[in-house]
């Protein structure tokens, strides 16, 4: 069952140098209980997408095209009051810097309770406390630490508290924007395990935004690869990682270091930000693509469906796929 459908979403930022396209014709679907991983370099627009879904884009950004259907209603057509009913109650977010996401002058439990009571004002205090206790259990923080302040928590515990807060109102969709980026590997592993666990328990849909393709490969069912504001490959995890059709997906995977020392021969790509694209009518990866051919300089790529759950935004997709 489709929970979230993003259709042709385009977002631009207004800057002193003119408009910058942050997202260009992004389309995908997310089913209930599924995890979709969006992966790409910094500046490719993945956080903008998360913010657009929460309708929390900064003032200089505007959505110029597209629809966001959540449970069959268009999020972009809702009034501010209506979106406030959905925000956090049905769609919540785990922010990138957990260290700064908590208010330092309030107890952690109070902050989580605040999230619960704001969206459910009829709830009694005792019931809210009970619910908060359950959340602490779920994310594996001992109850005796409920009354402590954020500075008494370690980095991993703060991140888990932020996750508990995102789960407070039993949302059906969570947007996780680089939830483990600031943590070291052991903590990262623990957080990923707990995300997997509560996802199963609560049948949550998660949109997981990260620049680390290994993390995405670990936790997500589907993967969307983004480059310079465009989705370039989308599909089932095994198919995307297994076939590596789009040249950018391939570069991204090959620049990831594994414990086996065979990646010495691989050449990294140049930095990518939207400003690098010379011609918006052509492929966004053209300038750095090792496979590009004549046809790539003539027309915009089209979506090529290689399997029902695997599509690639590349003119040469079939050629590369068939070897």
């Amino acid at each position, binding site marked *: 069952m489709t929970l979230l459908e993003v259709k042709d979403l385009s977002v631009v930022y207004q800057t002193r140098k003119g408009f910058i396209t942050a997202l260009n014709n992004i389309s995908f679907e997310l089913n209930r209980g599924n995890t979709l991983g969006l992966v790409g370099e910094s500046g490719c627009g993945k956080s903008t997408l998360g913010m657009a879904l929460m309708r929390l884009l900064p003032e200089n950004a505007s959505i110029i095209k597209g629809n966001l259907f959540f449970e069959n209603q268009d999020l972009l057509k809702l009034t501010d009051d209506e979106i406030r009913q959905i925000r956090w109650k049905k769609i919540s977010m785990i922010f990138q810097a957990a260290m700064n996401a908590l208010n330092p002058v309030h107890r952690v439990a109070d902050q989580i309770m605040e999230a619960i009571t704001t969206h459910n004002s009829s709830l009694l205090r005792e019931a809210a406390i009970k619910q908060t206790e359950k959340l602490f259990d779920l994310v594996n923080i001992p109850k005796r630490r409920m009354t402590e302040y954020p500075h008494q928590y370690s980095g991993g515990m703060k991140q888990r508290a932020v996750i508990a807060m995102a789960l407070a109102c039993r949302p059906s969709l969570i947007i996780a924007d680089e939830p483990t980026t600031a*943590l070291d590997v052991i903590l990262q592993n623990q957080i990923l395990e707990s995300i997997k666990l509560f996802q199963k328990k609560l049948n949550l849909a998660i949109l997981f935004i990260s620049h680390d393709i290994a993390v995405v490969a670990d936790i997500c069912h589907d993967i969307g690869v983004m480059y310079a504001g465009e989705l370039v490959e989308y599909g089932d995890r095994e198919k995307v*990682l*297994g076939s590596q059709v789009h040249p950018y997906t391939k*570069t991204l995977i090959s620049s990831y270091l594994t414990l086996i*020392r065979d990646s010495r021969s691989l050449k990294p790509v140049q930095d990518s930000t939207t400003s690098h694209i010379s011609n918006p009518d052509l492929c966004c990866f053209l300038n750095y693509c090792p496979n590009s051919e004549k046809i790539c300089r003539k027309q915009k790529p089209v979506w090529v469906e290689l399997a029902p759950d695997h599509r690639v935004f590349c003119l040469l997709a079939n050629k590369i796929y068939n070897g």
Partner: protein
Amino acid sequence: MKAINKLIVELDHIRKVYRSKQTFFRSDQKKIIALECLSMKIKRGEILGLVGESGSGKTTIGRLIVKLENPDTGKIYLDDKDISLLKGNALKNFRSRLQMIFQDPYQSLNPQLSVFDTVAEPLIIHKIGDSKSRQNQVNQSLELVDLKPPGNFLDSYPHQLSGGQRQRVAIARAIVLKPEFIVADEPTSMLDATVQLQIFDILLELKNKLNITILFITHSITAARYLCDRIAVIYRGHLMEQGPAQDVMTNPKHPYTKALIDAHPKFGYANKKQYKTLLKTQREPVNGECCPFFIRCEIAKIGVCDIKTPELKKKHKHHSVACFFS
């Protein structure tokens, strides 16, 4: 071969304790032990990877070696000379031989200085060359870090550069004095995976072309594997394991090293845990002497690990481990 076996830096039983400030309202001083009796040797011309989680004391080691801080007890030697005795000109000379690359290229560059001024600043401070030869030296080091042609970058300011370019400017600044030793403190943790590889290749080139010794501080065990000749694993200020990169990665001895390797996402395949050495719930901490990893260690035995701190012992020719059960 003789040259590579010569030591360049030696740490001898270093202990470093940070104390919280005493204030009018708080007279109790909190002590945080960053490093405890740590000894380490770094050979000339090698890249040594220092791996550990946040708060393990790895950055402190880097700062002690370049003398940004002084140890509480213990000695640090550069070419058999105790660096704590250095003063005046000798200290200045010492600083030109050791350089540091910091973690965050967004904060380590002065936003008001152009690339040329940034890279030329060490030359001016150490009064090396005249303005013409400085220009040459700056160009040379920019080329070494792959900012080509240098002319395109000389007049840029940090805000005009991408993260990867900034970090390369920071590296150029570190190598312009032709140092013998560089401390690179997580130089790529702020950068994307694709840019990270470029920086690694530059560091490898520095080692091969200029024979610079590098202490590479990182929390990523794969980065250490890719770049380093030797790896030292550090946990809560204790050295847990050290040896050739190949040996430590393929045949880890210490349960903490194994936990680090386990925690690393296994690309695309359901988590295959090889070692399982990390406890799900931590043990209660022990007062007094114990193995630093005791509270999280799966294989620890009560009566052994909670009464004594294991010492670093040689297991193979170059591979040593601090664990009773390795």
